[in-house]
């Protein structure tokens, strides 16, 4: 394992004064700085994987235990909105990757354009989520907050969903488990949305700096590393979508 990338010149003292302004003093070369910060971002993403891991564990257990309740409850999620959101995020991943490419090619205009599109797509995603959350609130499907199992013990009380899926009525004890499904729904998509919000905020800051030309002089680190974060948030949704929306629609 020899991935030591620092190279000390005999002219170490001279090289010290020749480094670009964005190279921090404790790094020997720009390349080392890029490698180190890139690796650091990957490690941070690993922590995020494990953070969501706890929720995925809870999900897998409870879905296994209460499958009928999970199926019926998942019909309450609008597949149109869910698919749209998935497409929006995938598209935003594409535009983010294009943004990284633009930074590497030093094309400031394109970089700003792609970052702005990514930003907008992120807002669209959150907008759709707001619509979905609002609908849950109206139908009393928010756990711990006037939660109602009426739609599950008496499916015909919800004609919109009933006409599509014709779910059988669930007995009360199984119907009450739908609250666990919705807890997982809100916890997982909520945690995901929180990460989106943070991402969008950082993206806003990056757009400001990109417009000033900070990332098109060879210093692609911030854009590349933020891109990793953004793609990661996309990957989480790539799993959340089938696990929450597509449990069984037949």
């Amino acid at each position: 394992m020899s991935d030591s990338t620092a190279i000390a010149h005999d002219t170490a003292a001279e090289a010290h004064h020749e480094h670009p302004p964005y190279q921090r003093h404790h790094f020997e070369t720009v390349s080392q700085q890029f490698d180190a910060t890139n690796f650091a971002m990957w490690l941070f993403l690993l922590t995020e994987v494990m953070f969501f891991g706890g929720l995925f564990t809870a999900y897998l257990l409870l879905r296994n235990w209460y499958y009928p309740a999970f199926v019926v409850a998942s019909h309450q999620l609008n597949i149109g909105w869910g698919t749209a959101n998935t497409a929006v995020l995938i598209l935003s991943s594409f535009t983010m990757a294009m943004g990284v490419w633009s930074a590497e090619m030093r094309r400031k205009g394109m970089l700003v354009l792609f970052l702005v599109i990514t930003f907008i797509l992120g807002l669209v995603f959150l907008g759709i989520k707001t619509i979905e959350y609002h609908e849950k609130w109206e139908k009393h499907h928010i756990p711990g907050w006037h939660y109602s199992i009426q739609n599950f013990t008496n499916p015909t009380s919800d004609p919109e969903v009933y006409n599509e899926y014709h779910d059988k009525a669930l007995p009360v004890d199984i119907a009450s488990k739908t609250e666990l499904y919705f807890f997982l729904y809100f916890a997982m998509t909520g945690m995901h949305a929180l990460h989106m919000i943070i991402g969008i905020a950082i993206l806003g800051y990056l757009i400001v700096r990109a417009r000033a030309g900070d990332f098109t002089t060879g210093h692609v680190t911030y854009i590349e590393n933020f891109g990793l974060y953004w793609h990661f948030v996309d990957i989480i949704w790539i799993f959340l979508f089938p696990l929450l929306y597509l449990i069984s629609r037949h």
Partner: protein
Amino acid sequence: MSAATIVTLPDQATARIPKTNFLTKENGLLSWLLTGDHKRIATLYLISITFFFFIGGALAGLIRLELLTPQSDLVAADTYNKLFTMHGVIMVFFFLVPSVPATIGNFLIPLMVGAKDLALPKINLLSWYLYVVAGIMAIYTMAAGGVDTGWTFTTPLSTHYLNTHVISTGLAIFVAGFSSIFTGLNFIVTIHKMRCPGMTWFRLPLFVWSNYAASILMVLGTPVLAITLVLIVLERTVHIGVFDPAMGGDPLLFQHLFWFYSHPAVYIMILPGMGVISEVVSTFSRKRVFGYTAVAFSSVAIAVFGFFVWAHHMFIMGISNYAALVFSLLTMLVAVPSAIKIFNWAFTLYNGSITFETPMLYAFGFMGLFTIGGMTGVFLGATGTDIHLTETYFIVAHFHFVMVGGMLMAFLSGIHFWWPKWTGRMYPEKISQLAALVTFIGFNFTFFPQFILGTLGMPRRYAAYPPEFQVLNVFSTAGASILGVGYLLPILYLTWSLKYGEIAGDNPWQATGLEWQTQSPPLTENFPEIPIMDHEAYDYEWLARQQQKEVASVG
């Protein structure tokens, strides 16, 4: 004790602390509070964790005072529950987890790999601030009435049956967890990407290997604790039902998620300590560590295996027999790499030129006490014995042997060993040796009786106990007061040494390692020029040639 010592100090009449060093480089509070210098951050951490150590220690004192008598007469049972809970929370999360990594590790890792700083200095500073915020939240919790769930927050007690400050404690630990994650992340990046030229992996000091392994655990394990605490908070506030059987949840799910972190946490706590012992044993036997590769790989093996043994904390909680079998087997396996280290240190000592300065005394204490603690862990890893010994004082004794007899001794060993490098001054040797001895005696008096109490059946976390256990409890409390003296002394004499200690010079211990080739205290940028590593770790022949060259060139 022989008068032989390897300490070599410069002539005290003419020696001076170097005028420019990391402590004097800039002045003023802000230069400390906004620093990126890993050595200053390490110093900030050292002060903070010492503060929390004494709070945790005071709580321990109260626990032992209560246990002098069989009745719950000093404090009410509820209060006693709060005492041991806060003692555990503070000692684990605010002292042991950050102890070696955030202080000695932060200080030394860049020096040992030959870098000017850690890879992410700002993240390092953030890590300290998160620790301070978490600490304030913990102090608030204590002031507001404390929490009494036990540091393990077992559900459904913590979620449904108690009205104490579970949420604020959970959030405090959540924040402290991120402090730990950022430290570990920084170490991994630094060790991979910032080694100086010639510093291959197998030339690194074993201290670096141990911290690397512990950092992997910090980065991969702590987030699971974070999400678990979030779930506890949600359960208490919103009543989501994930841990509530009445709503379809499972209390055991909490335990799986909690122990998935908390078992690796004990390796996070002990591995850096083992790293210290490797350095100290080598230096004070004047020999390279026996079986470098084995010790290096065993650190990583402990980390990897340590991820897959967590349910041995849950043998009696309702997991399946098959799961218990698998986890028990893996627990036996994880003991092997730890034992390998003990053997390697023993073989390092064999035929070495051993001297008994304070760090070495603590190291000997570590080797003996950690071995006892570790072996009792094997008893607990066997399900048959665990059923009888779990939740008794046997467990309490086991983990105090490894954590206090092991880890805390290693921490003190490291603090004494690197004190001259950190401050430029030596600590007073005689009184520190006395303190080490007092600590060792006090420790054994405190915790050995607890093994016996456990096998006799005294349960843990009880304020009152049957009168037949009183004698051993009195022994234990008496030992605790001796132990307290042993821990107070270093505070006093180390502080004293800051002004009156002998000037240490660059390398008072004649140790190998890049940190000993720089001035004491080091420069802010550690090295005037990035060094080039051209010799193996623990190369005492290289050191001898260096010293000859110095003598030759000066003379």
